[in-house]
């Protein structure tokens, strides 16, 4: 697909032919000449937040549930609830609260989703991603923690470990394979995750200063793309495939390197 191009011929239909590296050169030209660089920036910012904020918070929450502290079962249900609720419904509520309600109280057009500059907009969107994103991860961390042998925890307590030490010296090393898997899954999805931007904005232009993520760009382009590329129109199927191939070529070795490094330098259960 990435090496072909389509031409529409009356009475015949869409005819494909070999395009060589034309689609790749088209994509590379766009990559270095337009807002796509900004999109990579936004993608990495959002990914960094997921990795360094959402993941540790998720693990702390799971540990709380694992330790069966107060109301842990209730919190487990609440944390999973957003997973079941429609993202469309939750974005509508969130948008009304952060955009319309703030606008009505302050009179500033756009509310938190556009009225206070790009940084506030970005934080508002990232906060939503964090807010809605715990669900399944919490359950999987909890599942991994539940699999730890009780005798290890008892031994840790006999050695005088408190809860914090137990978390860092026993739980984290024990669930390290799960953490590695999550990081690898996140890397695999880094360029396909639209971070709810499409759900929030649809085909509307993003607020000033927000470039969107690569995943969002792919969704938006694919929605209106077709076999034949028209000047200044959405990218063609072949061009989008070429972009996909290029990103995959970058992501695969990154995944492998991260996996190797994590296995080499990660803690051992011993």
């Amino acid at each position: 697909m990435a090496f072909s191009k389509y031409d529409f011929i009356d009475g015949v239909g869409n005819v494909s032919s070999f395009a060589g590296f034309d689609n790749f050169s088209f994509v590379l030209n766009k990559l270095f000449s337009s807002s796509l660089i900004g999109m990579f920036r936004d993608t990495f910012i959002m990914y960094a937040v997921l990795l360094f904020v959402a993941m540790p918070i998720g693990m702390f929450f799971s540990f709380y549930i694992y330790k069966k502290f107060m109301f842990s079962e209730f919190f487990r249900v609440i944390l999973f609830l957003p997973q079941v609720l429609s993202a469309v419904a939750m974005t509508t509520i969130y948008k009304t609260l952060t955009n319309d309600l703030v606008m009505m109280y302050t009179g500033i057009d756009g509310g938190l989703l556009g009225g206070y500059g790009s940084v506030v907009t970005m934080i508002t969107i990232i906060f939503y991603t964090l807010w809605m994103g715990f669900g399944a991860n919490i359950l999987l961390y909890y599942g991994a923690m539940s699999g730890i042998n009780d005798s290890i925890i008892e031994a840790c307590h006999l050695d005088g470990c408190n809860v914090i030490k137990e978390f860092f010296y026993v739980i984290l090393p024990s669930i390290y394979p799960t953490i590695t898997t999550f990081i690898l899954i996140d890397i695999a999805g880094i360029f396909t995750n639209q971070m709810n931007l499409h759900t929030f904005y649809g085909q509307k232009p993003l607020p000033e200063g927000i470039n969107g993520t690569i995943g969002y760009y792919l969704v938006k382009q694919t929605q209106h793309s077709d076999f034949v590329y028209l000047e200044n129109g959405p990218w063609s199927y072949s061009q989008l495939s070429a972009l996909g191939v290029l990103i995959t070529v970058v992501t695969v070795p990154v995944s492998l390197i991260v996996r190797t490094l994590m296995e080499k330098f990660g803690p051992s259960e011993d």
Partner: protein
Amino acid sequence: MEIKKKKRQFKINVYAVIVGVLLALYALSIFFALGWGFITSLKYRTDFEGGNYMGLPNMEHWHKIADLVGSLKPGDELYERYSNFTHLFGNYANAIARISVLDHAKYYTGFNLDIYVDRMANGSFFGIITNTLLYVGGTALFATLAPCIAGYLCAKFKFKFSGIVCTFVLFVMAMPLVGNTTAMLTLLKRLSLYDTIYGMWITHCSFANSYFLIFLACFKGLSNTYAEAAQIDGASYWKVMWQIYVPLASKIFSTIFLLQVVAQYNNYTTSMYYLPTYPTLSYAIWKIQFSGVFNSKPELLATSLMLSLPMLIIFVIFKNKLMGNISLGGVKE
């Protein structure tokens, strides 16, 4: 010793208190968002826009509309416009009456991409509900059946190809494929499966996912003696699979099926990409957010919450099943 014990207790409490407070705040935010959304969805437009952002619905606004509708005759323009708004759940009644998708899909299909199709969406409320039931029911069923069958075959028939299949699944799962939607669109159009519900059922017959590994582990854990006993009694391979092993894995099957139902029901992008003339409820409501059909926030919130209601009911009934601890060893309950 006692001092040490007290110190430890204190540290435990600090951790529990900090994370507990954070979790309580999180729970509160979820309840607030849902509660506020629901209460606002019960307000009439003028009530909300008049400044009642946080309070309970002011019934006077509904009564006024009910009085107005009472003074009109069916068929009048004003009657048609306001007839749904005569009670507290007026926004919901209006949402059901007015949800529609009027898309016009134009595309080329067929092996040579030479068959031109220009079709209107089946986008009335009942059309959307039918599409949703067919899409969600079918895709969830096939997306559960495929890994179940593949997992069974690889677990119970040990030869080289089983190993190849397992390696293939692991490879696909680890491979960060980006931008394959366009290739799928092309394939579906060439096979004339694009814009068909059964086309979506077929594409969801995939076992290259983590559910395959769950079924594989489950079937590996079931003893072969059941099959041997049944075969001595004259059961065929087909019977052994469907009448012995699949029922034994029914707990995992139903859990994965429910997870698939939730995922497919909430997924609006599949309908957007692949089913332009068969809009599902999720896609229809996502689209309505931007179409201007409902221009007041209470109406939009009512429409959105209506979308969440079926999944909320499923969650309340099957909470333990949905949140069951799925692991490679099966479901721990």
